[in-house]
């Protein structure tokens, strides 16, 4: 049973990683990244490292996932990007919602 659990956990981990990178839609990739962080934290608990699991869940999945959602929102919030002409840059400080 323990080996079955390990194999399932590792298989899910790798499947989420591959799925997240083979996804064209950004939002799907980011959600799968958050889910990956959760499963990695479970793997740390399984390997007898609960303090690493604590840091991974709070930082690796929580903070990183939140930052990535914020970046996706920033990129998505402009449906038409600025013109690609290198001469035309937007005015300085116009878009600073960081």
């Amino acid at each position: 049973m323990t080996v079955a659990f390990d194999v399932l956990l590792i298989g899910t981990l790798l499947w989420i990683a591959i799925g997240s990178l083979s996804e064209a839609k950004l939002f799907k990739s980011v959600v799968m990244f958050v889910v990956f962080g959760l499963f990695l934290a479970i793997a740390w608990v399984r390997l007898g490292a609960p303090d690493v699991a604590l840091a991974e869940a709070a930082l690796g999945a929580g903070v990183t996932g939140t930052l990535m959602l914020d970046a996706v929102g920033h990129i998505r919030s402009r449906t038409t990007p600025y013109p690609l002409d290198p001469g035309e840059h937007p005015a300085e400080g116009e878009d600073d919602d960081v």
Partner: protein
Amino acid sequence: MSPATLYPLAGAALFAVGVYGLLARRHLLHKVIAANFLGSGVFLILIGLGKRATGLTPDPVPQAMVLTGIVVTVALTALALALIKRYYSATGLTTFEPLDESEDER
């Protein structure tokens, strides 16, 4: 298979997935995600090798290193995301070269 062999192998596979994503995906956010996977693979190898036979307490030194590494990864990711947002605001691009119309990934 004991966890001491299974998890480092999974870490190696995860590292390979990360390298693939870092090289093959063009969107910068995908590259950041792939770099995170790559780092997680290394962490998995370290902690998996630190886990000794059942009954023994795991080796604490790799755990401390991984704990530091997670914090460094978060700082790195935050910097990369801030740079991507700034780059997007300045140029309207999300890759290093303009995308074709047909494969617009935004």
